[in-house]
Protein backbone atom coordinates (compact mmCIF):
# COMPACT_ATOMS: atom_id res chain seq x y z
CA UNK A 1 0.00 0.00 0.00
CA UNK A 2 1.25 3.46 -0.82
CA UNK A 3 1.92 5.90 1.96
CA UNK A 4 -0.74 8.26 0.56
CA UNK A 5 -3.27 5.49 0.94
CA UNK A 6 -2.13 4.88 4.50
CA UNK A 7 -2.56 8.55 5.35
CA UNK A 8 -5.99 8.56 3.77
CA UNK A 9 -6.95 5.40 5.68
CA UNK A 10 -5.73 6.93 8.93
CA UNK A 11 -7.78 10.07 8.35
CA UNK A 12 -10.82 8.05 7.40
CA UNK A 13 -10.55 5.86 10.50
CA UNK A 14 -10.33 8.97 12.68
CA UNK A 15 -13.33 10.51 10.92
CA UNK A 16 -15.39 7.35 11.37
CA UNK A 17 -14.34 7.19 15.02
CA UNK A 18 -15.35 10.82 15.49
CA UNK A 19 -18.68 10.35 13.74
CA UNK A 20 -19.41 7.27 15.81
CA UNK A 21 -18.72 9.11 19.05
CA UNK A 22 -20.66 12.18 17.91
CA UNK A 23 -23.69 10.16 16.94
CA UNK A 24 -23.56 8.22 20.19
CA UNK A 25 -23.32 11.49 22.13
CA UNK A 26 -26.29 12.98 20.40
CA UNK A 27 -28.21 9.72 20.67
CA UNK A 28 -28.41 10.38 24.40
CA UNK A 29 -29.91 13.78 23.64
CA UNK A 30 -32.36 12.41 21.10
CA UNK A 31 -33.29 9.56 23.39
CA UNK A 32 -34.36 12.07 26.01
CA UNK A 33 -36.06 14.28 23.47
CA UNK A 34 -37.98 11.40 21.88
CA UNK A 35 -38.97 10.04 25.27
CA UNK A 36 -40.25 13.47 26.20
CA UNK A 37 -42.22 13.90 22.99
CA UNK A 38 -43.82 10.48 23.32
CA UNK A 39 -44.79 11.33 26.89
CA UNK A 40 -46.19 14.77 25.92
CA UNK A 41 -43.29 16.60 27.52
CA UNK A 42 -40.73 19.00 26.08
CA UNK A 43 -37.46 17.37 27.14
CA UNK A 44 -34.07 19.02 27.67
CA UNK A 45 -34.24 22.62 26.45
CA UNK A 46 -32.12 24.63 28.89
CA UNK A 47 -28.49 23.92 27.94
CA UNK A 48 -27.88 25.83 24.74
CA UNK A 49 -30.42 26.33 21.95
CA UNK A 50 -33.03 23.53 22.11
CA UNK A 51 -30.89 21.94 24.84
CA UNK A 52 -28.28 20.93 22.27
CA UNK A 53 -25.45 21.23 24.81
CA UNK A 54 -27.18 18.78 27.12
CA UNK A 55 -24.83 15.86 26.27
CA UNK A 56 -21.87 18.04 27.27
CA UNK A 57 -23.56 18.94 30.53
CA UNK A 58 -24.31 15.26 31.17
CA UNK A 59 -20.69 14.33 30.49
CA UNK A 60 -19.50 17.12 32.77
CA UNK A 61 -21.75 15.88 35.52
CA UNK A 62 -20.51 12.31 35.13
CA UNK A 63 -16.86 13.41 35.22
CA UNK A 64 -17.33 15.36 38.43
CA UNK A 65 -19.15 12.59 40.25
CA UNK A 66 -17.39 10.52 42.88
CA UNK A 67 -15.22 7.74 41.50
CA UNK A 68 -16.23 4.82 43.70
CA UNK A 69 -14.82 1.29 43.79
CA UNK A 70 -16.36 -1.16 46.28
CA UNK A 71 -13.90 -2.39 48.97
CA UNK A 72 -14.06 -6.08 48.05
CA UNK A 73 -14.24 -5.54 44.31
CA UNK A 74 -11.56 -6.79 41.95
CA UNK A 75 -10.04 -3.42 41.24
CA UNK A 76 -8.28 -4.15 37.96
CA UNK A 77 -11.23 -5.93 36.39
CA UNK A 78 -13.62 -3.32 37.76
CA UNK A 79 -11.77 -0.65 35.80
CA UNK A 80 -11.18 -2.80 32.72
CA UNK A 81 -14.88 -3.75 32.35
CA UNK A 82 -16.24 -0.47 30.99
CA UNK A 83 -13.07 -0.04 28.95
CA UNK A 84 -13.69 -3.32 27.14
CA UNK A 85 -17.31 -2.43 26.53
CA UNK A 86 -16.27 0.89 25.01
CA UNK A 87 -13.33 -0.49 23.00
CA UNK A 88 -15.34 -3.29 21.48
CA UNK A 89 -18.22 -0.98 20.63
CA UNK A 90 -16.02 1.48 18.77
CA UNK A 91 -14.15 -1.25 16.85
CA UNK A 92 -17.03 -2.70 14.91
CA UNK A 93 -17.81 0.28 12.68
CA UNK A 94 -14.50 -0.24 10.85
CA UNK A 95 -15.81 -2.57 8.16
CA UNK A 96 -19.06 -0.78 7.39
CA UNK A 97 -19.16 0.83 3.95
CA UNK A 98 -20.58 4.30 4.51
CA UNK A 99 -20.53 5.10 0.86
CA UNK A 100 -19.34 4.05 -2.56
CA UNK A 101 -16.21 5.42 -4.23
CA UNK A 102 -15.17 9.05 -4.55
CA UNK A 103 -12.80 10.16 -7.31
CA UNK A 104 -10.58 12.99 -6.09
CA UNK A 105 -7.73 14.08 -8.37
CA UNK A 106 -7.85 10.83 -10.32
CA UNK A 107 -7.51 8.78 -7.14
CA UNK A 108 -10.22 6.34 -6.14
CA UNK A 109 -11.22 6.75 -2.51
CA UNK A 110 -13.43 4.08 -1.03
CA UNK A 111 -15.58 5.28 1.83
CA UNK A 112 -14.87 2.34 4.09
CA UNK A 113 -12.14 2.05 6.71
CA UNK A 114 -11.17 -1.57 6.05
CA UNK A 115 -12.50 -3.65 3.19
CA UNK A 116 -12.09 -7.23 4.37
CA UNK A 117 -13.73 -10.15 2.65
CA UNK A 118 -15.05 -11.46 5.98
CA UNK A 119 -16.73 -8.20 7.06
CA UNK A 120 -19.86 -9.79 8.46
CA UNK A 121 -17.84 -12.30 10.48
CA UNK A 122 -15.69 -9.48 11.83
CA UNK A 123 -18.74 -7.53 13.00
CA UNK A 124 -20.24 -10.58 14.64
CA UNK A 125 -16.97 -11.54 16.27
CA UNK A 126 -16.43 -8.08 17.70
CA UNK A 127 -20.03 -7.60 18.81
CA UNK A 128 -20.04 -10.91 20.66
CA UNK A 129 -16.91 -9.80 22.50
CA UNK A 130 -18.94 -6.92 23.92
CA UNK A 131 -20.51 -9.24 26.45
CA UNK A 132 -17.11 -9.58 28.12
CA UNK A 133 -17.35 -5.97 29.18
CA UNK A 134 -20.67 -6.57 30.92
CA UNK A 135 -19.61 -9.93 32.33
CA UNK A 136 -16.33 -8.64 33.76
CA UNK A 137 -18.05 -5.57 35.16
CA UNK A 138 -20.71 -7.66 36.86
CA UNK A 139 -18.20 -10.15 38.21
CA UNK A 140 -15.68 -7.62 39.47
CA UNK A 141 -18.33 -5.67 41.40
CA UNK A 142 -18.54 -8.51 43.95
CA UNK A 143 -22.27 -7.97 44.25
CA UNK A 144 -24.77 -10.73 43.69
CA UNK A 145 -27.20 -8.50 41.83
CA UNK A 146 -24.50 -7.29 39.50
CA UNK A 147 -23.42 -10.86 38.90
CA UNK A 148 -27.00 -11.91 38.16
CA UNK A 149 -27.34 -9.04 35.74
CA UNK A 150 -24.09 -9.99 34.06
CA UNK A 151 -25.13 -13.63 33.75
CA UNK A 152 -28.43 -12.55 32.28
CA UNK A 153 -26.63 -10.35 29.80
CA UNK A 154 -24.27 -13.16 28.82
CA UNK A 155 -26.94 -15.81 28.37
CA UNK A 156 -29.20 -13.40 26.52
CA UNK A 157 -26.45 -12.34 24.15
CA UNK A 158 -25.43 -15.92 23.43
CA UNK A 159 -29.02 -17.05 22.85
CA UNK A 160 -29.88 -14.23 20.51
CA UNK A 161 -26.59 -14.31 18.68
CA UNK A 162 -27.54 -17.80 17.48
CA UNK A 163 -30.81 -16.68 15.95
CA UNK A 164 -29.13 -13.58 14.56
CA UNK A 165 -26.44 -15.61 12.86
CA UNK A 166 -28.96 -18.07 11.47
CA UNK A 167 -31.16 -15.32 10.06
CA UNK A 168 -28.10 -13.77 8.50
CA UNK A 169 -27.09 -17.00 6.77
CA UNK A 170 -30.12 -16.69 4.50
CA UNK A 171 -28.78 -13.32 3.30
CA UNK A 172 -25.32 -14.80 2.83
CA UNK A 173 -26.81 -17.64 0.78
CA UNK A 174 -28.38 -15.09 -1.53
CA UNK A 175 -25.37 -12.84 -1.88
CA UNK A 176 -22.68 -15.49 -1.71
CA UNK A 177 -20.26 -13.18 0.03
CA UNK A 178 -19.20 -12.20 3.54
CA UNK A 179 -17.87 -8.85 2.46
CA UNK A 180 -20.15 -6.02 3.50
CA UNK A 181 -19.07 -3.98 0.48
CA UNK A 182 -20.06 -6.74 -1.93
CA UNK A 183 -23.38 -7.19 -0.15
CA UNK A 184 -23.97 -3.46 -0.46
CA UNK A 185 -23.02 -3.42 -4.13
CA UNK A 186 -25.41 -6.24 -4.94
CA UNK A 187 -28.32 -4.19 -3.69
CA UNK A 188 -27.89 -1.69 -6.52
CA UNK A 189 -30.70 0.85 -6.84
CA UNK A 190 -33.85 -0.41 -5.23
CA UNK A 191 -32.92 -4.09 -5.28
CA UNK A 192 -32.74 -4.28 -1.49
CA UNK A 193 -32.48 -7.50 0.49
CA UNK A 194 -35.53 -6.61 2.59
CA UNK A 195 -37.77 -7.49 -0.38
CA UNK A 196 -36.36 -11.02 -0.46
CA UNK A 197 -35.81 -11.54 3.26
CA UNK A 198 -38.69 -9.96 5.21
CA UNK A 199 -38.84 -12.77 7.77
CA UNK A 200 -35.08 -12.83 8.11
CA UNK A 201 -35.08 -9.09 8.67
CA UNK A 202 -37.68 -9.28 11.44
CA UNK A 203 -35.67 -12.00 13.19
CA UNK A 204 -32.51 -9.96 12.76
CA UNK A 205 -34.22 -6.86 14.10
CA UNK A 206 -35.52 -8.60 17.21
CA UNK A 207 -32.10 -10.10 17.84
CA UNK A 208 -30.48 -6.72 17.33
CA UNK A 209 -32.65 -5.33 20.09
CA UNK A 210 -31.58 -8.16 22.37
CA UNK A 211 -27.91 -7.81 21.41
CA UNK A 212 -27.80 -4.13 22.26
CA UNK A 213 -29.67 -4.75 25.53
CA UNK A 214 -32.43 -2.37 24.57
CA UNK A 215 -36.01 -2.49 25.72
CA UNK A 216 -37.95 -4.82 25.54
CA UNK A 217 -34.84 -6.95 26.11
CA UNK A 218 -32.95 -4.79 28.61
CA UNK A 219 -33.04 -7.46 31.29
CA UNK A 220 -29.42 -7.09 32.40
CA UNK A 221 -30.31 -3.74 33.95
CA UNK A 222 -33.88 -4.34 35.06
CA UNK A 223 -33.96 -1.92 37.95
CA UNK A 224 -36.98 -3.43 39.66
CA UNK A 225 -35.40 -6.74 40.53
CA UNK A 226 -31.67 -6.22 39.99
CA UNK A 227 -31.32 -2.55 41.01
CA UNK A 228 -29.12 -1.75 38.04
CA UNK A 229 -27.90 -5.11 36.82
CA UNK A 230 -24.27 -5.40 35.88
CA UNK A 231 -23.59 -1.71 36.49
CA UNK A 232 -25.14 -1.49 39.97
CA UNK A 233 -21.80 -0.66 41.61
CA UNK A 234 -20.63 1.69 38.91
CA UNK A 235 -20.75 5.43 39.19
CA UNK A 236 -19.20 8.44 37.55
CA UNK A 237 -17.73 8.10 34.06
CA UNK A 238 -17.33 4.32 34.35
CA UNK A 239 -21.09 4.07 34.35
CA UNK A 240 -21.09 6.67 31.60
CA UNK A 241 -18.83 4.43 29.51
CA UNK A 242 -21.24 1.52 29.82
CA UNK A 243 -24.20 3.65 28.82
CA UNK A 244 -22.20 5.27 26.05
CA UNK A 245 -21.11 1.88 24.71
CA UNK A 246 -24.78 0.95 24.46
CA UNK A 247 -25.45 3.94 22.22
CA UNK A 248 -22.44 3.15 20.06
CA UNK A 249 -23.74 -0.39 19.70
CA UNK A 250 -27.08 0.97 18.58
CA UNK A 251 -25.37 3.06 15.93
CA UNK A 252 -23.30 0.10 14.72
CA UNK A 253 -26.20 -2.31 14.62
CA UNK A 254 -28.29 0.28 12.77
CA UNK A 255 -25.51 0.64 10.23
CA UNK A 256 -25.23 -3.14 9.87
CA UNK A 257 -28.97 -3.51 9.37
CA UNK A 258 -29.01 -0.72 6.78
CA UNK A 259 -26.16 -2.41 4.95
CA UNK A 260 -27.48 -5.94 5.05
CA UNK A 261 -31.17 -5.38 4.42
CA UNK A 262 -31.85 -1.80 3.38
CA UNK A 263 -29.42 -1.39 0.53
CA UNK A 264 -26.67 0.51 2.36
CA UNK A 265 -25.82 3.60 0.29
CA UNK A 266 -28.04 2.58 -2.62
CA UNK A 267 -31.17 4.52 -3.36
CA UNK A 268 -33.89 4.32 -6.02
CA UNK A 269 -33.22 6.00 -9.39
CA UNK A 270 -29.49 6.05 -8.70
CA UNK A 271 -28.62 5.31 -12.34
CA UNK A 272 -31.01 8.01 -13.59
CA UNK A 273 -29.13 10.52 -11.46
CA UNK A 274 -25.80 9.21 -12.72
CA UNK A 275 -26.79 9.48 -16.38
CA UNK A 276 -28.33 12.92 -15.86
CA UNK A 277 -24.88 14.42 -15.24
CA UNK A 278 -22.65 14.46 -18.31
CA UNK A 279 -19.21 14.55 -16.64
CA UNK A 280 -18.57 10.96 -15.44
CA UNK A 281 -16.27 11.92 -12.54
CA UNK A 282 -18.69 14.53 -11.25
CA UNK A 283 -21.60 12.14 -11.75
CA UNK A 284 -19.84 9.47 -9.72
CA UNK A 285 -19.00 11.89 -6.93
CA UNK A 286 -22.52 13.33 -6.75
CA UNK A 287 -24.07 9.87 -6.65
CA UNK A 288 -21.62 8.80 -3.93
CA UNK A 289 -22.29 11.84 -1.77
CA UNK A 290 -26.06 11.38 -2.09
CA UNK A 291 -25.44 7.74 -1.22
CA UNK A 292 -23.61 8.69 1.96
CA UNK A 293 -26.50 10.96 2.94
CA UNK A 294 -28.96 8.15 2.22
CA UNK A 295 -26.90 5.72 4.29
CA UNK A 296 -26.92 8.07 7.26
CA UNK A 297 -30.62 8.74 6.82
CA UNK A 298 -31.25 5.00 7.04
CA UNK A 299 -29.03 4.72 10.12
CA UNK A 300 -30.86 7.60 11.83
CA UNK A 301 -34.20 6.06 10.96
CA UNK A 302 -33.12 2.85 12.68
CA UNK A 303 -31.79 4.72 15.71
CA UNK A 304 -35.12 6.52 15.95
CA UNK A 305 -36.89 3.17 15.68
CA UNK A 306 -34.82 1.78 18.56
CA UNK A 307 -35.86 4.69 20.75
CA UNK A 308 -39.45 4.63 19.59
CA UNK A 309 -39.72 0.97 20.59
CA UNK A 310 -38.04 1.65 23.91
CA UNK A 311 -40.73 4.12 24.92
CA UNK A 312 -43.54 1.89 23.71
CA UNK A 313 -42.95 -1.64 24.89
CA UNK A 314 -42.64 -3.02 28.41
CA UNK A 315 -39.80 -5.33 29.35
CA UNK A 316 -39.99 -9.08 28.76
CA UNK A 317 -39.97 -11.52 31.63
CA UNK A 318 -36.78 -13.55 31.68
CA UNK A 319 -38.33 -16.92 30.90
CA UNK A 320 -40.35 -15.31 28.09
CA UNK A 321 -37.16 -13.86 26.72
CA UNK A 322 -35.43 -17.23 26.67
CA UNK A 323 -38.50 -18.93 25.23
CA UNK A 324 -38.74 -16.38 22.45
CA UNK A 325 -35.09 -16.79 21.61
CA UNK A 326 -34.77 -20.55 21.63
CA UNK A 327 -38.24 -21.84 20.81
CA UNK A 328 -39.46 -19.25 18.33
CA UNK A 329 -36.68 -17.24 16.73
CA UNK A 330 -34.18 -20.05 16.14
CA UNK A 331 -36.73 -22.41 14.49
CA UNK A 332 -38.05 -19.49 12.46
CA UNK A 333 -34.56 -18.61 11.35
CA UNK A 334 -33.91 -22.19 10.31
CA UNK A 335 -37.21 -22.24 8.42
CA UNK A 336 -36.20 -19.03 6.68
CA UNK A 337 -32.91 -20.65 5.72
CA UNK A 338 -34.66 -23.69 4.27
CA UNK A 339 -37.11 -21.51 2.35
CA UNK A 340 -34.30 -19.36 0.97
CA UNK A 341 -32.33 -22.42 -0.06
CA UNK A 342 -35.38 -23.88 -1.78
CA UNK A 343 -36.03 -20.61 -3.58
CA UNK A 344 -32.45 -20.42 -4.80
CA UNK A 345 -32.57 -24.00 -6.09
CA UNK A 346 -35.92 -23.37 -7.74
CA UNK A 347 -34.56 -20.28 -9.45
CA UNK A 348 -31.55 -22.20 -10.77
CA UNK A 349 -33.83 -24.98 -11.99
CA UNK A 350 -36.34 -22.71 -13.74
CA UNK A 351 -34.00 -20.20 -15.36
Amino acid at each position, binding site marked *: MESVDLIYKGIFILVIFGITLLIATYSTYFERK*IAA*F*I*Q*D*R*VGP*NRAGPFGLLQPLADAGKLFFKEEFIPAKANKALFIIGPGIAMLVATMSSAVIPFGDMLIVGGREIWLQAIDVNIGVLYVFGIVSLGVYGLMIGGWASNNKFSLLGAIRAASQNISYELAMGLSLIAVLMMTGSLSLREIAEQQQGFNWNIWYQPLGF*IIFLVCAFAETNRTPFDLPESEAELIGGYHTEYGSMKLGMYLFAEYINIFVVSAVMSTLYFGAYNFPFMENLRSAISDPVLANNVVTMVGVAVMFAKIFAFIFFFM*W*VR*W*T*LPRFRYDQLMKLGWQILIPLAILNMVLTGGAILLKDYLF
Partner: protein
Amino acid sequence: MEPLSNRSKKVQKREMTFAERAYLPAIAQGLGITLKHFFKKKATINYPEQTRERSDIWRGLHVLKRDENGAERCTACGLCAVACPAEAITMIAGERKAGEEHLYREEKYAVTYEINMLRCIFCGMCEEACPKAAIFLQDDKLAPARYERDEFIYGKDRLVEPLKTTETK
Protein backbone atom coordinates in the same frame (compact mmCIF):
# COMPACT_ATOMS: atom_id res chain seq x y z
CA MET B 1 -75.40 -14.04 45.77
CA GLU B 2 -77.07 -10.91 44.54
CA PRO B 3 -74.74 -8.92 42.29
CA LEU B 4 -73.95 -5.44 43.66
CA SER B 5 -74.19 -3.84 40.28
CA ASN B 6 -75.12 -4.94 36.81
CA ARG B 7 -71.64 -4.15 35.52
CA SER B 8 -70.01 -7.49 36.30
CA LYS B 9 -68.86 -9.44 33.27
CA LYS B 10 -68.25 -13.09 32.94
CA VAL B 11 -64.56 -13.60 32.29
CA GLN B 12 -63.83 -15.92 29.46
CA LYS B 13 -60.39 -17.22 28.78
CA ARG B 14 -60.19 -18.06 25.13
CA GLU B 15 -57.21 -19.17 23.13
CA MET B 16 -55.31 -16.31 21.54
CA THR B 17 -55.51 -16.13 17.78
CA PHE B 18 -52.37 -16.46 15.71
CA ALA B 19 -52.21 -12.72 15.10
CA GLU B 20 -52.33 -12.12 18.85
CA ARG B 21 -49.72 -14.74 19.60
CA ALA B 22 -47.38 -13.33 16.98
CA TYR B 23 -47.10 -10.08 19.02
CA LEU B 24 -46.07 -8.04 16.01
CA PRO B 25 -49.51 -6.61 15.11
CA ALA B 26 -50.00 -5.56 18.71
CA ILE B 27 -46.54 -4.03 18.77
CA ALA B 28 -47.29 -2.11 15.60
CA GLN B 29 -50.50 -0.84 17.17
CA GLY B 30 -48.61 0.27 20.26
CA LEU B 31 -46.01 2.02 18.16
CA GLY B 32 -48.81 3.86 16.41
CA ILE B 33 -50.19 5.05 19.71
CA THR B 34 -46.86 6.37 20.92
CA LEU B 35 -46.18 8.04 17.60
CA LYS B 36 -49.50 9.87 17.87
CA HIS B 37 -48.36 11.23 21.23
CA PHE B 38 -45.21 12.45 19.53
CA PHE B 39 -47.24 15.15 17.79
CA LYS B 40 -49.66 15.97 20.59
CA LYS B 41 -49.77 19.23 22.48
CA LYS B 42 -47.25 19.25 25.32
CA ALA B 43 -48.43 19.57 28.88
CA THR B 44 -45.23 21.31 29.99
CA ILE B 45 -45.22 24.89 31.29
CA ASN B 46 -41.71 26.35 30.91
CA TYR B 47 -41.71 27.82 34.39
CA PRO B 48 -39.55 30.91 34.59
CA GLU B 49 -40.74 32.16 31.20
CA GLN B 50 -44.34 31.01 31.50
CA THR B 51 -46.27 30.87 34.72
CA ARG B 52 -49.24 28.74 35.30
CA GLU B 53 -52.60 30.49 35.27
CA ARG B 54 -54.30 30.27 38.62
CA SER B 55 -57.99 30.27 39.33
CA ASP B 56 -59.57 33.60 40.26
CA ILE B 57 -60.52 32.29 43.68
CA TRP B 58 -57.08 30.81 44.36
CA ARG B 59 -55.75 31.98 47.74
CA GLY B 60 -52.10 32.90 47.86
CA LEU B 61 -49.85 35.30 49.73
CA HIS B 62 -51.55 37.81 52.03
CA VAL B 63 -51.55 41.53 51.45
CA LEU B 64 -52.50 44.38 53.82
CA LYS B 65 -54.37 46.92 51.76
CA ARG B 66 -54.19 50.68 51.79
CA ASP B 67 -57.14 52.94 51.16
CA GLU B 68 -57.53 55.35 48.27
CA ASN B 69 -55.37 57.96 50.06
CA GLY B 70 -52.58 55.53 50.75
CA ALA B 71 -53.29 55.06 54.46
CA GLU B 72 -53.26 51.59 55.97
CA ARG B 73 -56.74 50.19 56.41
CA CYS B 74 -55.88 47.80 59.26
CA THR B 75 -57.05 48.96 62.69
CA ALA B 76 -55.52 46.06 64.61
CA CYS B 77 -58.91 44.88 65.83
CA GLY B 78 -57.59 41.33 66.01
CA LEU B 79 -60.62 39.69 64.41
CA CYS B 80 -58.43 38.04 61.81
CA ALA B 81 -56.24 36.56 64.54
CA VAL B 82 -59.32 35.26 66.31
CA ALA B 83 -60.74 33.82 63.11
CA CYS B 84 -57.48 32.15 62.16
CA PRO B 85 -57.84 28.41 62.80
CA ALA B 86 -54.08 27.88 62.59
CA GLU B 87 -53.29 30.78 64.92
CA ALA B 88 -50.79 32.14 62.46
CA ILE B 89 -51.56 35.85 62.91
CA THR B 90 -50.23 38.01 65.76
CA MET B 91 -50.28 41.76 66.11
CA ILE B 92 -49.58 44.59 68.52
CA ALA B 93 -51.93 47.58 68.41
CA GLY B 94 -50.84 51.19 68.81
CA GLU B 95 -52.46 54.65 68.96
CA ARG B 96 -52.15 57.02 66.06
CA LYS B 97 -50.27 60.23 66.91
CA ALA B 98 -51.20 63.62 65.55
CA GLY B 99 -49.74 64.17 62.12
CA GLU B 100 -49.92 60.50 61.18
CA GLU B 101 -53.39 60.75 59.61
CA HIS B 102 -51.97 60.13 56.16
CA LEU B 103 -50.37 56.89 57.37
CA TYR B 104 -53.21 55.18 59.23
CA ARG B 105 -56.86 55.40 58.50
CA GLU B 106 -58.25 55.04 62.05
CA GLU B 107 -57.00 56.11 65.48
CA LYS B 108 -55.82 52.61 66.22
CA TYR B 109 -53.35 50.81 64.01
CA ALA B 110 -51.10 47.73 63.97
CA VAL B 111 -47.58 48.51 65.20
CA THR B 112 -46.52 44.99 64.26
CA TYR B 113 -48.52 42.56 62.23
CA GLU B 114 -47.00 39.13 61.65
CA ILE B 115 -48.20 36.06 59.80
CA ASN B 116 -46.35 32.81 60.22
CA MET B 117 -46.46 31.25 56.76
CA LEU B 118 -45.44 27.87 58.15
CA ARG B 119 -48.65 27.78 60.14
CA CYS B 120 -50.94 29.49 57.69
CA ILE B 121 -53.26 27.12 55.85
CA PHE B 122 -54.47 29.74 53.35
CA CYS B 123 -58.10 29.15 54.32
CA GLY B 124 -59.09 32.78 53.80
CA MET B 125 -60.91 33.14 57.12
CA CYS B 126 -58.91 36.29 57.96
CA GLU B 127 -60.13 37.81 54.72
CA GLU B 128 -63.71 37.00 55.66
CA ALA B 129 -63.37 38.20 59.25
CA CYS B 130 -61.82 41.57 58.45
CA PRO B 131 -64.39 44.39 58.91
CA LYS B 132 -62.14 47.00 57.27
CA ALA B 133 -61.38 45.09 54.05
CA ALA B 134 -57.71 45.33 54.98
CA ILE B 135 -56.40 41.80 54.51
CA PHE B 136 -56.69 39.82 51.32
CA LEU B 137 -55.14 36.66 49.94
CA GLN B 138 -53.81 37.46 46.49
CA ASP B 139 -54.62 35.17 43.59
CA ASP B 140 -51.34 35.68 41.74
CA LYS B 141 -48.61 35.37 44.38
CA LEU B 142 -47.48 32.50 46.54
CA ALA B 143 -45.30 32.45 49.63
CA PRO B 144 -41.93 31.41 48.16
CA ALA B 145 -39.69 28.69 49.59
CA ARG B 146 -36.97 29.78 52.01
CA TYR B 147 -34.03 28.17 53.71
CA GLU B 148 -34.55 29.60 57.24
CA ARG B 149 -37.58 29.13 59.43
CA ASP B 150 -37.71 32.75 60.69
CA GLU B 151 -37.86 33.95 57.12
CA PHE B 152 -41.37 32.54 56.98
CA ILE B 153 -42.65 35.01 59.56
CA TYR B 154 -43.90 37.83 57.40
CA GLY B 155 -43.96 41.25 59.05
CA LYS B 156 -45.56 44.46 57.89
CA ASP B 157 -42.59 45.17 55.65
CA ARG B 158 -43.56 42.26 53.43
CA LEU B 159 -47.32 42.33 53.90
CA VAL B 160 -48.38 45.94 53.46
CA GLU B 161 -49.18 46.91 49.92
CA PRO B 162 -46.53 49.26 48.55
CA LEU B 163 -47.58 52.85 47.88
CA LYS B 164 -48.68 53.39 44.34
CA THR B 165 -46.14 55.99 43.33
CA THR B 166 -47.25 56.04 39.72
CA GLU B 167 -50.77 57.17 40.56
CA THR B 168 -49.79 60.17 42.69
CA LYS B 169 -47.85 61.77 39.88
